[in-house]
Each structure stands twice: as structure tokens, then as C-alpha cells.
């Protein structure tokens, strides 16, 4: 009974297609029509500009705390373009570019961060879930959605997201195991930005990559340059094809950097050096993709300026629309908080709704009386 090495497949790849200067590895370059590539850039730029505007609005007190997503456009876009419209999008919370691509309006995104449930309503006809704030819970739901696709005999794929911090939650491991055991058509995309608020990757886990965890679940794992939209796309496309063929889930780890604070309430100076962020600045995803597209003759300053103007107009319109909406029902009406908890409102909840309505109308008439008194 000797000791023998176990025959466990330990294949693990990293993929990088575009370097920091926008130079491409021709052998890996995906064949994407030029118009499509231009479109990708436009969506990534929109993701960036929306994120930047959200920050300004937050600083002005017009929206609440939110987690910034600048720098994560390549992972969001490279994965989301790899699925089809009827497929499922099960996000975490830094996939702004993916939300926009799937048809979530800027208005809806603004409503969510303005503290309204109406901002969590997915676009009509899309198999999308809203933002998932509690960490890693969405992954188990994604596995279940994939299992249901198998039961129903549907060839739809589930694209889901989580962070490096989330990789520590038990739910992540349960989701990967379930999806693997049941060959659920799920692509698990880890947005590894190397920080869970203040905790760096090396304090989060004692292994080199998130991707290698795939080995223990018997599924393919790949680490890609998460700031390289082409590399992300190559990995995602393969994973989606495998899932659609009934070959089960894949774990993709996109290595990137959290260029921003965790949220607008966070101050990264407390736990990391600014030089670190500067080192990552050159690896930023939009710059290299633009260089690549310029070399291919797809983009130039004029085209980009025009894109910027269109995006700016679109953002400004959305802000104006939301300012108007906030003054109107249902957005301005607190009583709708009761209306969607159950399919049928139970009597005790109707009583509570009436109680609040009574209280609010009383307060309103009190305020009017005071106003009248003041006017006299």
C-alpha cells in the first residue's frame, strides 16, 4: 500500500490579449466586427461616465452612499457581451457597464442610489436580477437558476458576479459545488480588485488565485487580465459555449484593481498607499482598449468626442428626468412601501397602511394650519 500521487487535473490558465499599450496578441485576438468593437468602447465609456457622475451627485448630497465601479468596465463588458439577450444576468454591485448594456436605464440606476425600490426593477423582458448587496448570496441563486434551466430543458446561460472578498463566504463555495454537481450552465465571474474594503487579497485567502478554487470543484478555472476586455471576452465566450453545450460551470477570475474607495463612505488612505493606485493607473482598461481601437482605425479623437457628447447629453437628460420623477407618485409616495410585499395584502398590513396614511394626512393638515396661521 504505497504512497502514490493522485491523478487530479490541475490545469489552470491565465489569459492576456491586450497589453498596456494596446498591442494585441494576434493568436488570441477575437474576431469581432469593427462596429461591434466601437460599440463596446461606447458602453465602457458610458459605464465610466455614469460612475463619475454618480460620485458628483453623491458629493452634492443628491444620492446616497454607493460603491464606485470605475476601472471595472472591462470585466463587466467582456462578460456581458458573451451572453445572449435571453440569458440570465445575476449581478453583484460593481457591474454598472453590464447593467447599462442589458438595458437598465441611467434613470433606474439613479433611482436605486436615490433610495427607491423602483431602481431595482429589471428592464421588461430581460432575465436580469437587481443589484445584490449582501455578499455572495446571488451566486447560489445563479446556481439555482442554472439548475432550473436544466430541468426545463432551456439552453440559457447564467452570468453571475462576485468579488475577491465574496470568495471567502460559504455561499460562494456552495454555489460552485452545486453548479458543478448538477452541471448547471453558470459562468461565475470573480471581479478580483484585490481589496475587500480594507482587507487586501493576501489576508483574504492563503492561495495564489481565486481561479484555482475551481480545481477543487472539478470545473474549469481561468485567471484573466481583468483590465483587458478582449481577454475577458475570450474566457467568457469559451465558458458560455461550454455551459450552453451542457458541460457545466466555469470560474473566471478577472484580476483588476479597485481604483476607487470601496464606497463613497470609505477612505483608502487609512489602509493602502497612493503609489499603489498609481502603479495600476497605466493598466486601466479604457486607455488600452482605445489605443487598440485607434490602431485599428476604429476610433479617433473626433469619434470619441462625439461619443462623449452623446453620453453627457444622455446623463443630463436622465438626471433631469429623475428630478422630475422624484416629485411624482409613486416615487414621492411613502405609502407604496406596503403594496408589493405579498401578492395579496393581508388585513393587518392594510391596517398599518391606513394607520400611516392617517398619520401623514394629520401631519399635513397640521402643517397647513401652521402655514395659514403664519400667513395671517
Amino acid at each position: 500500500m504505497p504512497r502514490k500521487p493522485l491523478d487530479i487535473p490541475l490545469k489552470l490558465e491565465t489569459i492576456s490579449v491586450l497589453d498596456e499599450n494596446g498591442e494585441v496578441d494576434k493568436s488570441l485576438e477575437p474576431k469581432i466586427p469593427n462596429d461591434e468593437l466601437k460599440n463596446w468602447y461606447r458602453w465602457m465609456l458610458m459605464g465610466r461616465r455614469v460612475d463619475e457622475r454618480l460620485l458628483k451627485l453623491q458629493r452634492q448630497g443628491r444620492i446616497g452612499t454607493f460603491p464606485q465601479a470605475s476601472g471595472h468596465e472591462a470585466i463587466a463588458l467582456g462578460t456581458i457581451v458573451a451572453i445572449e439577450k435571453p440569458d440570465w444576468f445575476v449581478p453583484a454591485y460593481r457591474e454598472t457597464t453590464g447593467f447599462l448594456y442589458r438595458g437598465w436605464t441611467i434613470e433606474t440606476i439613479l433611482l436605486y442610489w436615490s433610495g427607491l425600490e423602483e431602481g431595482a426593477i429589471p428592464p421588461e423582458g430581460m432575465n436580469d436580477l437587481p443589484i445584490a448587496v449582501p455578499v455572495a448570496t446571488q451566486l447560489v441563486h445563479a446556481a439555482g437558476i442554472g439548475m432550473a434551466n436544466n430541468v426545463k430543458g432551456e439552453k440559457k446561460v447564467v452570468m453571475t458576479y462576485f468579488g475577491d472578498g465574496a470568495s471567502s463566504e460559504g455561499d460562494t463555495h456552495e454555489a460552485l459545488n452545486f453548479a458543478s454537481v448538477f452541471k448547471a450552465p453558470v459562468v461565475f465571474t470573480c471581479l478580483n480588485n484585490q481589496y475587500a474594503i480594507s482587507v487586501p487579497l493576501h489576508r483574504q485567502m492563503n492561495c495564489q488565485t481565486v481561479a484555482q478554487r475551481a480545481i477543487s470543484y472539478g470545473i474549469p478555472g481561468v485567471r484573466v487580465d481583468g483590465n483587458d476586455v478582449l481577454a475577458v471576452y475570450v474566457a467568457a465566450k469559451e465558458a458560455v459555449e461550454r455551459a450552453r453545450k451542457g458541460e457545466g460551470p466555469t470560474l473566471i477570475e478577472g484580476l483588476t484593481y479597485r481604483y476607487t474607495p470601496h464606497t463613497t463612505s470609505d477612505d483608502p488612505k487609512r489602509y493602502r498607499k497612493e503609489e499603489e493606485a498609481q502603479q495600476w493607473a497605466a493598466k486601466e482598461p479604457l486607455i488600452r482598449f482605445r489605443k487598440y481601437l485607434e490602431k485599428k482605425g476604429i476610433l479617433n479623437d473626433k469619434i470619441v468626442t462625439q461619443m462623449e457628447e452623446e453620453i453627457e447629453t444622455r446623463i443630463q437628460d436622465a438626471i433631469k428626468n429623475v428630478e422630475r420623477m422624484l416629485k411624482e407618485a409613486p416615487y414621492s409616495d411613502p405609502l407604496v412601501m406596503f403594496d408589493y410585499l405579498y401578492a395579496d395584502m393581508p388585513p393587518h398590513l392594510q391596517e398599518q397602511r391606513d394607520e400611516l396614511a392617517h398619520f401623514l394626512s394629520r401631519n399635513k393638515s397640521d402643517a397647513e394650519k401652521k402655514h395659514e396661521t403664519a400667513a395671517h
Partner: protein
Amino acid sequence: MPEMNMAKAINLALFEAMTRDDRVVVMGEDVGPDEGVFRITEGLHAKFGDKRVIDTPLAESGIIGTAIGMAINGLRPVAEIQFSGFDYYAYHHLEMHAARFRNRTRGRITVPMVMRAPSGGGIRAIEHHSESREVIYAHAPGLKVVMPSGPRNARALLHAAIQDPDPVIYYEPKACYRLFKEEVPDQIETLPIGRAQVVRQGKDITLISYGATMRCTLEAAEMLEEEDGVKAEVVDLLTIAPMDTQTIIESVTKTGRVVIVHEAPRTCGIAAEVIARINEHALLYLEAPVKRVTGYDLPIPYFAREKAYLPDADKVLLAARETLAF
């Protein structure tokens, strides 16, 4: 006696407890060099280092499960869950294990640990960051649940929680962290767990609350006195479980009228338990049905609508006047 806010008072209690007892360790997400997302662990990592101020991986179940192991093995862990909305992940360990080891082993194995978490709404936070779910722990036999309402009682109760031989859930009303300052004695003081406090004397009506809603309850009591000439007695529960029946009953038998205030949902809430105890011990003293001013039976709405959801002084005043007019 220095003045400080509740965030500082909790920080002070942690500092003092770690200084005088080497068994006390602080653990959780971002409690180390970041000093906690609300800065509750400020200065602790610098003073006590990695071994006793432990930045954990992001896993609530892991944090509480390992805290239980540490407590069993002789330490006094104070585990932070970053927001109470995320402690459901840890509930299994608290209810099925922390709460039961003493009973299962007839006292041989015990779990002297504290789970701290910022709780409640009112700070315009993101979804899942404003929950008030103290009742699920109060309903778990074997756990103690404490909720301070101000700097001084926050510090005293945290000392008591850390010294307690059993697991204590210490929920911090985060809306109060920096709301007001109070004098805190130079010497360490503790408040007994399981005891409520009468914080305002009165004879006409009893207002009972705890945690963040103590502020609007006291405000309503002042308004009742100024506008209606009514003297309201105000009881701060401080401990949710085990609940201090005696203090409640003594006040109710004096006033005969009661309003209970909390921001957690109404059904099977803390107010329901208070009413049951009043019914058991003082029903015939009541002059009016007991009223509840609570959060509604809903997940707390996203922040744009949370003000309408939360109790405020006007809601308490209305309920008190209806009770007085009955």
C-alpha cells in the same frame, strides 16, 4: 468626567476591556488598520496588534463560528459584524451552538462571547444596512440581547457583556453613534444585564422603548408635559432578553396607560412581549389598551421612504394622546 459620543464610548469600553483582560480579542471585517467602518475599533490595532485585533476574511458565519471556538478555548472574543443585516449568515452558529453549549454539556462547555453589530435605520444607508432584527435573537433561548441608547450606558453595558459568562448580542443603534455627547465617568462602570431603567419619572402614562427610539420617546414625553401638562414616565429597556419584567410592571401599576416604541417590525416584536407580560402581571391596572408605535411589518424601505417607516416623536405623541383620551 469626560464628554463623549456613543461611538467613542464603545471604543473606550473595548480599549479598557482589552487592557485589563488579555483574553479579550476583537475580530471582524475591517476592524484592524481601517479601525472599523464606523471607527469603533479606533486605536485598538495600533495598541494591541494583529493577534488580538483580527481582520478576518469576509465571512460572517466564519467570524461567529470561530469566535465560538475561541470562547470555548478560553478567550473572550468580541466579534463585530459590520452591519446587523449581515448577521443572518451567522445566525445558525449563534442559535444552534453559542446558545446551547452550556445547556448541552450541563455547564461543562460555555461560550462567553459578544457579537457587536451596528443596527437600525435613519442614516440613509444602502439596502440591507438598516435592519432591526433584535427580536430573532431575543427569541433564541440561551442568548442575551442588549441595546444601549446613549454613550454612558453603551460603555457600561459593553463591559457587562464582555464579562458575562454567556453569549451576548450587543446591538448598537448606529443612528446614535454621533448624535449626542454625554458625560462618562473616569472609572469603569458596568450596568447589570437584564435590568431596565426608569429614565424619566411620571405618573400619567408609561412610555417604554430602547435603542435609537429612546430619543423620540423622550422628546414626546417633553412635548406631553409642555403641551398637555401630562407627566410621562419613560422606561429604557436596555436589555431586550432577558427582559426586566419588574421595572415595567412597577411603572404600569402606577400609570395604568402604556405606549411601547421600537423601530423593528410590529408582529411578534418586542412590544408584543412587553404587552404579554403586562397582561400576565398587571392587566387589571390598565386604564386603556396598550398602544404600539413601531416599524411596520415590512423590510425597512430603501432610504427615500425610511423616514415615514420609522417611529418619530409625532407618532409617539399621537399614540400617547389616544391612550390618554381612552
